[in-house]
């Protein structure tokens, strides 16, 4: 016990400052009223859904909970059920085998809710789909429905393969901030 307490004291506080919201990440107009955003902004529950990722994006979502990003310190919590969630954090191209599960998770999340798509794959299908260069391709194949927006409505997208924890945090904070004109 002595060692343990000594280690905690020696470690000190590591947390970095949180990033500011970035309007460029927003893909749909902010639908929520400011009062709700105010509540979300200080106590947000997130349900993560891996819709077919390579697990790279998950590694960075895990990192959000480490002492440097300290996401819980911002009042943001990952919850076990969509029924407790205000926001879905979705990674991966949506594999066809995950479409039903993703839709059901979305439906099980009570309104008002927000969806943030994390990673290149979630934004456009990523490397797993051939887009043939068309920006609207969405990245479909026999096994993948491509980007998350092809399956459920998305509020904010965060690119990167995988995006850094700071970028993910910025995406989350953008989704719960009032839209700047």
């Amino acid at each position, binding site marked *: 016990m002595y*060692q*343990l307490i000594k*280690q*905690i004291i020696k*470690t000190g506080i*590591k947390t970095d400052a949180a990033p500011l919201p970035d309007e460029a990440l927003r893909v749909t107009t902010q639908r929520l009223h400011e009062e709700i955003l105010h509540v979300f902004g200080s106590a947000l529950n997130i349900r*993560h*859904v*891996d*819709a*077919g*990722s*390579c*697990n*790279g*994006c*998950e*590694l*960075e*979502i*895990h*990192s959000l*909970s*480490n*002492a*440097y990003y300290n996401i819980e310190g911002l009042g943001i919590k*990952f919850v*076990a*059920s*969509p029924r407790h969630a205000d926001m879905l954090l979705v990674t*991966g*191209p949506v*594999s*066809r*085998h*995950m*479409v*039903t*599960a993703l839709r059901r*998770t979305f439906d099980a999340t009570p309104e008002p809710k927000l969806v943030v798509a994390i990673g290149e794959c979630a934004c456009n299908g*990523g*490397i*797993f*789909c*051939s887009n043939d260069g068309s920006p609207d391709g969405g990245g*479909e*194949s*026999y*096994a*993948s*429905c491509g980007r998350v927006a092809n399956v459920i409505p998305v509020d904010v997208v965060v690119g990167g*393969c*995988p995006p*850094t924890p700071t970028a993910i945090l910025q995406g989350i904070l953008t989704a719960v901030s009032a839209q700047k004109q």
Partner: protein
Amino acid sequence: MPINHPNLHLTQLAGAIPAWSGNIKPDDLQPICRNVHDGGGRLVALWGSDDREQGNGYSLHIALVNEAGLICLSVPLPAGQPGYPDVSSIFPVANRMQRATYDLLGIYAHEGQDHRKWLRHGAWHGGSFPLRKDFDAAQSLTDDADNYPFVQVEGQGVHEIAVGPVHAGTIEPGHFRFSVVGEKMLRLEERFGYTHKGIEKRFESMSLQQGAKLAGRVSGDSTVAYAWAYAMAAESIAAVTPPERALWLRALFLERERIANHLGDLGYLGNDVALSFGFTQFWILKEQVLRNNGALFGHRYLMDSIIPGGVAADLTEPGKRTLFEECSLLEREVRVLRGIYEEHAGLQDRFIGAGRIEPRLAAQLGLCGLAGRASSQAWDTRVQFPCAPYDQLDVQMATYRNGDVAARVIVRFDELFESLRLQREILGRLMPGGELSLPLEKLPALGFGAGMVEGWRGEVLVAIHTDTDGNLARVHPHDPSWQNWPALEHAILGNIVPDFPLINKSFNLSYSGQDL
């Protein structure tokens, strides 16, 4: 010769590890597999290919390993009736691989016991096969829900708990069907394939260089191991050896991947038994490793740092000093944390005896990698078949007999210290200057090559077949999770439901890597 059999003619493949390839007739498949099995060898991977464009039928390919090295055998099958003798009766681990090969290619095992689908859910119909060359990868067939015949357990007081595909934590999707009495688990049946995103089909329309990026995303936590195995396979076909500096850097990257993942797992294993202190401490260390990766090599997980022909990231002299300092920090801190874990009664109480796989069962199941070594399966590619620069590093293998969560934790600690020692050794030997890569644009026609690398989880294999123009005709990435997932079904027997997350985490297997 690695195996003696009258009908077997093997050719040694060029490249970094001892490997052979050869064609055999379907009738010789079982005797040869039995021969390797009885000699203490294992099945590493099983896949198929559509060779009809070359005027042939299909082929079944298997990769076996024994003390001599890797043996890749191809069994040509007629286009009309592409059946082959069942391998799963000799190597039980072949079961899911055979079923997946049928789902994707339509070649099947005669006399197999289990003919249920494996990777296919509803995305394509039973009679269509994505890896056949005439299958249109762009089409979308169906969105039907899955209908999978789970094995049901009957009896008084038995009930089922269905978990997934969306889990309670931040993990990949898969389904676990538990049959329980009270809290005690009687049976676990896994159902995967949820993250199947058509990786193998995708390779076929890619250039060698694009393929390297895709290989690095089969399982994001093992990106270095996959990228290296892919590069090794390509270099074997082209019969080229990357510059020495590139090889040292590859080993550095691979050990850093192991360090980062082991740190992360050790933290989560503490967390799973309610010692959140463990998570906090280990993840501070992991974050420092990742930040150094980002600052020195341009990517926190080192994605795309290994390319066919060499590496795409270099280490400067000041960078070297940063890593030496990191080594000292990690050695010091992990030693303290290990002491705390070892003396924490509550933690040890949960670790010891949980999720045990006895060495005998481990051998039968072909358990490999880290989990295998915790159950006395002394296989480590870096030790048995040390490719350069491991041939100069004398890697010490960590093995334990107990096969429980505690053993898998100890193996992680030991390997972590060994990787730190290796990192120091590599840094010390990495001389300034030297080429990072040699040009490798295109591969020779109709070639075959295989690469095998000991990733943090276990052995990662990538096999490449080229077509008549030297393009990628077929690429098969194999994750060690294929071997180890079935073992989890045994490990949980007799344990209680609340220990499942802990046992599962102690294996920490890949979903994406086996779903492809």
